[in-house]
């Protein structure tokens, strides 16, 4: 199920555009959407899920125009959506909440719905807590309920917005694996600002900044953006300047800095192999956007 976006703009009343003439093609399979907070990712997700109307531009999902009512409904029939600001009804149990969402998603047969809810509770490891009111659930447990509801109707399109926020490391890994397994014939759009989530699950990705597309390509393409730009500097003195510090690790004789910079920050700086995070940070450094867009 392809997503075709062209000239998409969304401007909230009296504010700068959250999306500014976005053109993007998302193929079937797993696709990552990366960007800082406020880059426009959530606005894009909400438009794709049919929750927001764009100010202008075209969005087609599997050939359906989501700016029309009929198109939105057609998409929502095959959609699983996990919003960033996920909420649940505190007065219901997880099983009841999933049953409710299942009904709204058109799983009318009671036996089918109960079976599906049971399977998904198992998948998100909540079977033993399934009949407890959601009021008493932790943030991570609620997130798992959110994941389960997104998968209820066996969606062909899965849109997940910051899905691993609030999950512990084991849950994160389990969920990432689940997403990858689900991809295959489906389109899974994973929006996050956690680079590692994309690195571990996606082959292709796009990067948004200030409502614009600043990169679209493969994980390897983005990683290569930081070729000959990643440096290791050990110093007991002030932090190296002129680049972006990725990490600072205490070592004998000071701190070992990992720096993304166009030129070596110090004379004794050692060049390192880049990873996806370095590539992402390299994008935000001075340089023409056109250059970044080239795969």
């Amino acid at each position, binding site marked *: 199920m392809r997503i075709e976006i062209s000239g998409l703009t969304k401007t909230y009343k009296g504010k700068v555009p959250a999306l500014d003439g976005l053109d993007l093609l998302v193929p079937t399979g797993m696709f990552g959407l990366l960007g800082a907070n406020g880059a426009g990712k959530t606005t894009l997700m909400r438009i794709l899920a049919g929750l927001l*109307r764009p100010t202008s531009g075209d969005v087609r999902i599997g050939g359906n125009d989501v700016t029309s009512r009929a198109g939105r*409904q057609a998409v929502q029939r095959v959609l699983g959506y996990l919003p960033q600001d996920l*909420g649940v*009804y505190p*007065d219901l149990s997880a099983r009841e909440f999933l049953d*409710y969402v299942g009904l709204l998603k058109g799983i009318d047969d009671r036996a089918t719905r109960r079976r599906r809810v049971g399977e998904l509770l198992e998948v998100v490891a909540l079977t033993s807590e399934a009949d407890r009111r959601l009021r008493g659930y932790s943030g991570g447990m609620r997130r798992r309920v959110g994941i389960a509801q997104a998968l209820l109707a066996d969606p062909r399109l899965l849109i997940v917005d910051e899905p691993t926020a609030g999950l512990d490391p084991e849950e994160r890994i389990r969920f990432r694996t689940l997403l990858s397994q689900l991809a295959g014939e489906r389109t899974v759009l994973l929006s996050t600002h956690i680079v590692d989530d994309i690195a571990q699950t996606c082959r292709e990705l796009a990067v948004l900044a200030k409502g614009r597309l600043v990169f679209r390509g493969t994980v390897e393409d983005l990683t290569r953006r930081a070729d000959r730009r990643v440096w290791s500097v050990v110093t007991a003195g002030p932090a190296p300047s002129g680049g972006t510090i990725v990490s600072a690790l205490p070592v004998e004789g000071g701190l070992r800095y990992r720096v993304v910079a166009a030129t070596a920050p110090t004379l004794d700086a050692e060049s390192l192999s880049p990873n996806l995070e370095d590539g992402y940070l390299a994008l935000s450094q001075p340089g023409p956007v056109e250059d970044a867009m080239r795969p």
Partner: protein
Amino acid sequence: MSAAFRYEFLMQVRKRSMWLANGAIVLLLGLLSARSLGDVLDDPAAKATMASTAVLVNLILPVGYGCFLADRLVRDDRLGVAAILDATPASAAGRLAGKYLGSCAAAAVPLAIVYFGFAALYAATAGRPVALGWAAALFAVVILPAVLFVGAFALVVPLLIPAPLFRVLFVGYWFWGNAISPAAMPTLASSLVTPIGSYPLEVFFGVDLAGPEPGALFNFLRPEATAATALLSIGVLLALATLVLSAAPALRARITR
């Protein structure tokens, strides 16, 4: 619609605060009318007794459920559930209708318990089982339209103003628009749009509450009390509820888009 109805009803009847608030109001009513309770239970006029009880129930209990229902629609956005529900293919109008009817049904449960509980007690003590029939008629014609009217406003108006402000305004409106005599000050009481059901109460159950008041403002809303105007009054209340509900999608869109 049935899914929203079922789960809205379930969530609401589980609310301990709803039962506590209704319990407190009923206890207060019981204490205030304790002296006359013995006389009332001996009164052989079943229709009049059930009608006057309906007036009391309809005058006091809506204050509780009107305030209680005030956050039922806005809370979906506040809790963050709205995005999940809105992303399903279920029609927004159907969900709204289900939520509304589920909320109203849940609000009607304590009312029914209080009212039919009293009716059963009266029927047993006064030896007048017909009281249960009158109670059923009054519940359907007088109490339910009030629930549907109040429910619509309580769900929708907090999309425009904060729920706490709505609660304050609603309590003021309720006593001004229902309890104050038009002879005392300009009010909507005793008119076609009086939610406690002045017209049906007068026409069908003999409670003197409706009709024009000499010299009062808004007398154009107080035609002579007849069967037609009683039915018209019920129709107007339900039409106003429908009108208010139909504005909800546009009001929500104003907030969320």
